[in-house]
């Protein structure tokens, strides 16, 4: 801190002159229903519309919404700006933030809790426990989830499958491999895939779930248990990932996920393993679920959970605090959860919202979610920053993507996985 203190005194004189300039930009009007400045990375297309529904609902209650959209790198740019804002002593009121990222900021003492609202509205009884844990710090809610995305989806083009004589969606990796071999023989790329680290990691975690089951997944990718990480099951998972690598066309590196989805749409590729946002691409192209494309969970009888949420930063002033309470309550209201998720293509984070207006894939997702909660098979996604600290996740992603793009053996990969995780701990 010494250096900063030096800076501080040096700048003190200049500060007063500059204050006048800053004051111009700040609105001093106080609104009865609160003001929120929301930093988020849903900036374009359907995602922007989804946030728009939140803004509209907030303003309908008489509040003022200040929008701070920053897209890029799945939130990386927004996180950069967030740090600059917090360091400058000017944090946004609410920030789109997820998974252990919430805990990181809470540990810095940067968050306000909204436990009052949560208690009054019984959040504990309507959220899946695995998700509720992530939203809390020290037993208090510091974040409110807007949706649930399922990561372990298998998308398919039924025509392509028929052409190769594949009749059913595979339910085990053996069945998948058999189907893929048939497809390959028929000259169809079995798996449409984009070679970006997070996409490779998506395949990896879905494979781990399928090969090892939910308990193994949790041990290895959530608890980072050294034994599980070094186990033969992990080697077997890498073996299956290597298999998948063989089912991908040679031009996959760097491809965006939506272009892989387009390959499935056109029948160039038969399957894609991707979260349920891929559905948005199909729907936008006018495809009908169940007819033009199929959705089924990847093998493994689990549910890989990804959820977006808003976190409340430490701000002062009646107006802003009120805004946080109102926003928290609004996000968790059943009506909002429904409108938002219809626009976003995900399913409500609340388990008690009816899914009658949703498409069949979303309904399936909801059904499986309830089942998974029951049988304790709901696991947080490692690839999508729900499970482990970002530092550890980064190391795993580096290793998985290197494995996928080289001829590293499964044994080496398993060994290096443990080493990489040790480094980041």
């Amino acid at each position, binding site marked *: 801190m010494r250096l*900063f203190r030096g*800076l*501080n005194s040096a*700048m*003190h004189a*200049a*500060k007063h002159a*500059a*204050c006048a*300039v*800053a004051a111009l*930009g700040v609105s001093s009007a106080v609104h009865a229903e609160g003001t929120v*400045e929301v930093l*988020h*990375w*849903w*900036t*374009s*297309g*359907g*995602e*922007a*519309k989804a*946030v*728009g529904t939140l*803004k509209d609902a907030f303003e309908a209650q008489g509040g003022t*919404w*200040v*929008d*701070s*959209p*920053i*897209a*890029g*790198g*799945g*939130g990386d*740019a927004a996180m*950069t*700006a967030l*740090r*600059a*804002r917090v*360091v*400058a*002593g*000017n944090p946004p009121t609410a920030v789109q933030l997820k998974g252990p990222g919430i805990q990181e900021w809470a540990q810095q003492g940067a968050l306000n809790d909204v436990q009052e609202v949560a208690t009054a509205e019984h959040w504990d009884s309507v959220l899946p426990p695995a998700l509720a844990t992530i939203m809390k710090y020290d037993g208090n809610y510091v974040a409110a989830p807007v949706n649930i995305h399922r990561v372990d989806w298998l998308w398919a083009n039924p025509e392509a499958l028929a052409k190769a004589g594949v009749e059913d969606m595979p339910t085990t990796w053996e069945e998948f491999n058999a189907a893929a071999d048939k497809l390959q023989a028929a000259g169809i790329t079995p798996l449409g895939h984009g070679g970006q680290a997070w996409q490779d990691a998506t395949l990896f975690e879905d494979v781990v779930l399928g090969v090892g089951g939910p308990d193994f997944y949790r041990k290895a990718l959530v608890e980072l248990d050294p034994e599980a990480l070094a186990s033969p099951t992990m080697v077997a998972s890498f073996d299956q990932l290597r298999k998948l690598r063989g089912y991908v066309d040679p031009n996959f590196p760097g491809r*965006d996920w*939506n272009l892989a989805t*387009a390959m499935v*749409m*056109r029948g160039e590729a038969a399957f894609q393993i991707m*979260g349920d*946002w891929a559905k*948005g*691409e199909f729907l*936008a*192209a006018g495809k009908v679920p169940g007819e033009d494309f199929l959705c089924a969970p990847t093998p493994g009888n689990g549910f890989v959970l990804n959820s977006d949420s808003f976190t409340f930063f430490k701000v002062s002033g009646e107006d802003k605090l009120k805004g946080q309470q109102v926003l928290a309550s609004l996000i968790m209201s059943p009506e909002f959860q429904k409108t938002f998720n219809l626009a*976003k*293509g995900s399913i409500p984070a609340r388990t008690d919202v009816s899914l009658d207006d949703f498409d069949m894939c979303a309904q399936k997702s909801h059904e499986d979610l309830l089942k998974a909660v029951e049988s304790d098979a709901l696991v947080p996604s490692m690839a999508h920053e729900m499970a482990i600290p970002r530092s550890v996740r980064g190391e795993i992603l580096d290793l998985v993507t290197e494995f996928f793009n080289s001829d590293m053996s499964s044994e080496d990969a398993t060994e290096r996985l443990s080493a990489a995780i040790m480094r980041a701990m």
Partner: protein
Amino acid sequence: MRQRRTSGIVQPKGLRSVLMRMGLFAVLGLFCLYYLLPLVVMVSTSLKSLAEIREGTLLSLPQAITFDAWAKAWDSACVGVRCDGLKPFMWNSIAMAVPAVILSTTLGAINGYALTKWRFPGADWIFALILFGAFIPFQVVLLPMARTLGQLGLAGTVPGLILVHTVYGLAFTTLFFRNFFVSVSDGILQAAKVDGAGFFGIFFRIVLPMSIPAIVVTVIWQFTQIWNDFLFGVAFTIGDSNPVTVALNNVVNTSTGVKEYNVDMAAAIIAALPTMLVYVVAGAYFVRGLSAGAVKG
């Protein structure tokens, strides 16, 4: 302004020179192709409908030309919850880039002039130290800078951003002018000094008018860097005061949404138009002889 165009260096000499000229144009043309190819793809994509992009190959020429994407990029694409396209953000960038370019260029010119034509002990050291600032990675100065701006009360404001760009532009502007002045001979300046002209007198009346080539390359550089900056823009402005690069990024980037490549391309070209305008205008001063006469001494 004098535009004394003296003859080129290769003197025409019959058939051989005709052949050389053809070769010259062939090389220039080939490079034009290299530079233009991506632009052709961008323009062609921007004129397609989204359905055509999804169905066809990405690089084919448009079958039915539509300007919808351009209209959308300009004033109806969503940038967060606000769907007014890039239009509102262009002004933010201009309000930031123009003062920052003028400030950093002027300061750089004075700096370069003082460091070469009024040399004092340690001038080279100072130059070298200022120059090294060109290499500081912006990713790491972000946080201390944010802290500084917060202390100054300039966090999240346009003046704050102008300060940042001026400070980190100084290394380059000083470099350009210093290296230009170094090759200008001291004769005229000595004469002016003898005549009693002072530091600023010589600067404004003699040095500035002959440094047009240096001003041109400096302005081109600074304008490009400042206009295209994303990192500082994203970290040091808030929402509605974002520069156009942040807005462009918001239009283009979607994590889990549908990608509209045609709008992306149109938006990128629109965001680049002011910079290209600077190139065209500034480029008009790339003329031989502007500084001739002044250089010798």
